[in-house]
């Protein structure tokens, strides 16, 4: 199809060559009828890149070698892109066939807006949800975090904001969207631009290692103190962190002050509703470890977030 490139899809890929291949297949099946391009920033060796990316039949693919965090790679990607609309999707996502069409359509209906699509756990991978510790995304747009797994930015806005904060180890997508809002941009939903997110299972040590990165959210909150308005007591990332902290205090203090034991009750009540009894201890360990990790991050970034 001739004509100017309507949209550039940017993907940062690391250590997920098979999933990247599956993403390329899903992008090859897109119904979007106008010219578009795909920019992949990856750190695969030459042979892998040749096999997985270069020889894939999808036309209009720019593959760029790039290292560093996701923010840095995405910056490399959108800066190398040609279009005025930049769609971001993650390498562990599977867009529906009309994903790009719907995303661009919403962008044209709302010129200048950031457009967030809907993300659901991958229906092909539902069996994995039986695991006690899983990682996936379930996003109803527009949500509080505006993750980069399924979102479109006008190029002009990215340029004005100078892209992602490359110092952020995690939460760089939230940071970008907050700066976009601060600059007066609007964020609109495209609920019919659907992408499915991989479902990955972890062992308890594995999920603890995986979640260690959340300690760097303190950096994000330090940059955007307005986020605290949505946090319980202004310092807890979410209600579960508050409740598990209260439960831990209750359990530890109960040795000397038994009347403090009921502090554990709200957590137990809430967790019992969400998880089977067999999964409860693991979930409690996971959540408490997250709080401890965030405490470490608070010290490092000199702002309290638990």
């Amino acid at each position, binding site marked *: 199809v001739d004509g100017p490139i309507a949209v550039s899809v940017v993907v940062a890929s690391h250590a997920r060559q*098979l999933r990247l291949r*599956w993403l390329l*297949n899903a992008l090859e099946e897109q119904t979007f009828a106008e010219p578009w391009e795909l920019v992949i920033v990856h750190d695969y060796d030459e042979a892998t890149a040749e096999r997985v990316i270069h020889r894939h039949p999808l036309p209009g693919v720019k593959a760029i070698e790039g290292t560093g965090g996701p923010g840095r790679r995405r910056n490399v990607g959108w800066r190398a892109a040609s279009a005025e609309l930049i769609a971001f999707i993650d390498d562990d996502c599977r867009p529906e066939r009309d994903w790009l069409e719907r995303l661009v359509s919403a962008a044209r209906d709302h010129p200048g807006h950031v457009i967030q699509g809907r993300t659901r756990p991958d229906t092909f991978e539902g069996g994995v949800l039986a695991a006690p510790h899983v990682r996936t995304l379930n996003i109803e747009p527009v949500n509080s975090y505006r993750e980069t797994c399924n979102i479109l930015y006008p190029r002009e806005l990215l340029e004005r904001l100078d892209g992602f904060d490359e110092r952020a180890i995690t939460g760089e997508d939230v940071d970008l969207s907050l700066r976009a809002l601060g600059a007066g941009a609007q964020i609109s939903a495209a609920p019919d631009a659907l992408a499915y997110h991989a479902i990955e299972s972890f062992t308890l040590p594995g999920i603890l290692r995986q979640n260690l990165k959340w300690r760097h959210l303190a950096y994000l909150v330090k940059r955007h103190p307005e986020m605290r308005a949505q946090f319980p007591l202004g310092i807890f990332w979410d209600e579960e962190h508050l409740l598990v902290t209260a439960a831990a205090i209750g359990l530890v203090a109960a040795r000397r002050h038994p009347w403090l034991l009921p502090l554990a009750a709200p957590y137990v009540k809430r967790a019992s509703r969400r998880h089977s009894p067999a999964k409860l201890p693991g979930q409690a360990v996971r959540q408490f470890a997250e709080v401890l990790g965030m405490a470490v991050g608070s010290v490092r970034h000199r702002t309290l977030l638990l």
Partner: protein
Amino acid sequence: VKVALLHHGRGAPAVHELAASLRELQNDVTVLTPSPTALESLLERRGFTTPLTHLPVTLTNLMRGGYDVAHAFSPQDAYAALLWRRRSGRPVVLSLVEPIQRERLADARLRLRFLNTALEQCDVVIVHNDEARAAAWRWLALEPPVIELSDGAAHERLYRAQT
């Protein structure tokens, strides 16, 4: 060549045909088909790829067998064979016999991990028909050689090339 053919019971007739064909060529072939245990259904309910519980027996049989090559017919059997290779230093061949469909590549716990490990570490990955080769290219970015499952002579050549 002393060969262990590893499979978990699904598609057994074809594997036994290959074994017969290899034996006709004077190879020493053992088909290792340990029975899954009662724990299998529990693992399945917990979302794991199955069968799995036979893997320790498969590994033990491989360790004791003194084989020149192990030929696995599923990623999880290849995983056991790769553990055997660490000790024995002998090659592992993987046949992709299960349908390669996006819907099934990561639909259970450990499935993708077994697949990734097997694809990255097995000495050779093969398929048995052109349809499987096309699917392997599309979904795994692999172009494995096609060797008909009943072709004992071609398998023997493959094993000899690896040992």
